[in-house]
């Protein structure tokens, strides 16, 4: 009786395919995204948000490989780039050859091209996982990037190829000349692609992809060809990468070699890892944080890429679950009702931690300024303070502050660890 009623309770939530509680986050996200332009109206803000949306789609498609399928790719930009280049050519066919295609459907075309290449390349690259897959992805990435410089007719050489998104038939009276119209097009595609990728992860093939990632050999003894499972994930991932590429083509109306080179492939790996490969939302968080760092931090400092590198390395070393993993770590304390135990220690460490980050950044910035300023431009301003970057006072001051705050952090860490253990401990305090 007991077990029977328990089984009932467990299977009940599965009865309705779409329950209200699972729909709510999506509806909320959609509403949020659609209202966002009311707050951020400037063209620059819209561009950043579009960039973010494109990166999210790209990162989610990448995580279909890395997080869900266990395939570490060093060449995923190939599928986004090729999807984008084909989309751009189709856009030009709309303009010059009278091809009838409403702009909002262009991502389907780009997606199909991305998918076609994933089908072809995946046919041999997904044979094995692990190092073999990684090396093939790297080789193919290098090959396509080299082709993009050689085959000028298609890739446009160093200048790349460009187009005009406004030449297609109008849709509901919009011609997509305005940035805000493009924003809505991008965001709707972001939602559609995200929902589809989420649903994919919950199909039989999506779950078997997890199984193959976990233990490819065991899956073979359950009737599944590990190679076919990987190949199918790869094809699906190629489609969404192509969608991201098309959205890029629509937004920026230009594609260059940079869209499919190894640097872009590397940064999508970084973004996805930073966000957290073990969670569906991980790549979304990663894409948002990365785009903000790149654009906002990029306004203030030339060495933003250095900070990003440091962030990435520390994430790999200390938080391999990424941002999403850090959030997920707090689920257990929350479930135990002990999250409040962590608030105090977190607040206590916040000030020295922020100070140490800022002062270490100051050390880097001052050293950079000293080496790279023109002639005798010794004046530098940081955090609203103007000083002489070539003297020893400023640098020394920053180093001393950094040392003190780091020392304080190291003193507080044990108490955080203790609070953490206690918050994760079921039952009353010992």
């Amino acid at each position, binding site marked *: 009786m007991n*077990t029977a009623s*328990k*089984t009932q309770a*467990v*299977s009940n939530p*599965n*009865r309705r*395919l779409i329950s209200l509680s699972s729909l709510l986050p999506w509806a909320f996200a959609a509403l949020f995204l659609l209202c966002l332009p009311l707050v951020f109206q400037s063209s620059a803000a819209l561009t950043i948000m579009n960039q973010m949306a494109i990166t999210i789609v790209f990162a989610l498609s990448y995580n279909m490989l890395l997080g869900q399928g266990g395939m570490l790719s060093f060449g995923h930009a190939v599928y986004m780039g090729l999807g984008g280049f084909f989309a751009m050519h189709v856009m030009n066919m709309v303009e010059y050859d009278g091809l009838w295609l409403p702009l909002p459907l262009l991502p389907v075309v780009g997606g199909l091209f991305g998918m076609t290449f994933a089908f072809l390349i995946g046919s041999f690259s997904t044979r094995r996982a692990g190092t073999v897959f990684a090396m093939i992805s790297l080789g193919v990435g290098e090959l396509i990037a080299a082709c993009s410089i050689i085959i000028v007719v298609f890739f446009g050489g160093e200048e790349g190829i460009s187009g005009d998104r406004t030449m297609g038939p109008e849709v509901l009276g919009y011609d997509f000349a305005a940035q805000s119209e493009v924003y809505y097009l991008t965001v709707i595609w972001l939602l559609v692609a995200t929902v589809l990728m989420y*649903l*994919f992860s*919950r*199909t*039989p*093939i*999506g*779950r*078997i992809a*997890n*199984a193959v990632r*976990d*233990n490819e*050999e*065991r*899956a*073979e*003894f*359950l*009737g*599944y*060809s590990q190679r*076919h*499972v990987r190949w*199918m994930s790869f094809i*699906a991932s190629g489609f969404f990468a192509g969608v991201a590429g098309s959205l890029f083509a629509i937004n920026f109306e230009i594609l260059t070699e940079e869209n499919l080179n190894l640097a872009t492939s590397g940064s999508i790996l970084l973004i996805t890892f930073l966000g957290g490969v073990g969670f569906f939302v991980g790549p979304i968080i990663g894409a948002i944080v990365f785009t903000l760092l790149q654009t906002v931090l990029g306004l203030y400092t030339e060495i933003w890429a250095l900070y990003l590198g440091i962030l990435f390395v520390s994430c790999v070393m200390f938080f391999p679950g990424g941002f999403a993993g850090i959030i997920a770590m707090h689920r257990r304390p929350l479930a135990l009702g002990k999250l409040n135990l962590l608030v105090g220690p977190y607040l206590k460490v916040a000030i020295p931690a922020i100070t140490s980050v800022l002062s270490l950044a100051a050390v880097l910035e001052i050293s950079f300024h000293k080496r790279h300023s023109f002639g005798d431009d010794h004046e530098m301003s940081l955090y609203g303070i103007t000083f002489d970057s070539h003297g020893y006072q400023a640098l020394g001051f920053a180093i001393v502050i950094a040392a003190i705050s780091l020392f304080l952090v190291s003193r507080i860490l044990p108490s955080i660890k203790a609070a953490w253990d206690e918050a994760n401990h079921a039952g009353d305090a010992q």
Partner: protein
Amino acid sequence: MTVPAIELRNLEKSFGLAKIIQGVNLKIEKGERHAVIGPNGAGKSTLFNLITGRFAPTSGGVYLHGEDVSGMQPFEINRRGLSRSFQITNIFPNMTVFENIRCGLLWTMGYKYSFWHMINGQRDVTEKAEQILEEINLTARRDLLAGTLAYAEQRALEIGITIAGGADIILLDEPCAGMSHSETDLIVDLIRKVTEDKTLMIVEHDMGVIFDLADKISVLVYGEIIESDVPDAVRASAKVKEAYLGTTLEEEDA
């Protein structure tokens, strides 16, 4: 004469110069519970690996219901109705216990590579998986990650995954290894229950288990089958006593 469920003809396997399986001939009838025993390193697991496609034979053939499957991939052999467990636990450690079982079900329940079904919406799969969890006594562990289970529980899960798909030929490689007496009893009951009307091939060191379960026993020594008969005949065989069993059997009798 019916076609045997498993037939091995002159099966040989060498790793480099080492001949591990040296000409095995064996027929296992449909519905038979067949035990393979033999000392450590005799080649029992290797024999399983040859039958299930993990290794390709050096020479000779493996036939399932009369069809030559030698050289096929494991997934092709599995689709022909053969499922196996492993001596060293082989599960999906980062997925939940429930999902582990479900992975064992999906192919045979016809979902295959489907991307047009929502997996949680398939009641037939959910119910079957929960029924198997009940059978292997892991309902209480349903939502834990399989890698966090205790050893004995992982062994039970290993068997659960193996039998989930309802294959009609089941191969179990030392299902009771490293288990306590009470755990062993549970597993043996389970094996008996889930392999009803099925063909079972089992490797086991525990003689109690063997004589309890098996209709027939083959004794493998240095890659050769030296005896293959009903339990009483094997027990009585001078050849077996001399080569391997001897003392163990007398202890069992006492």
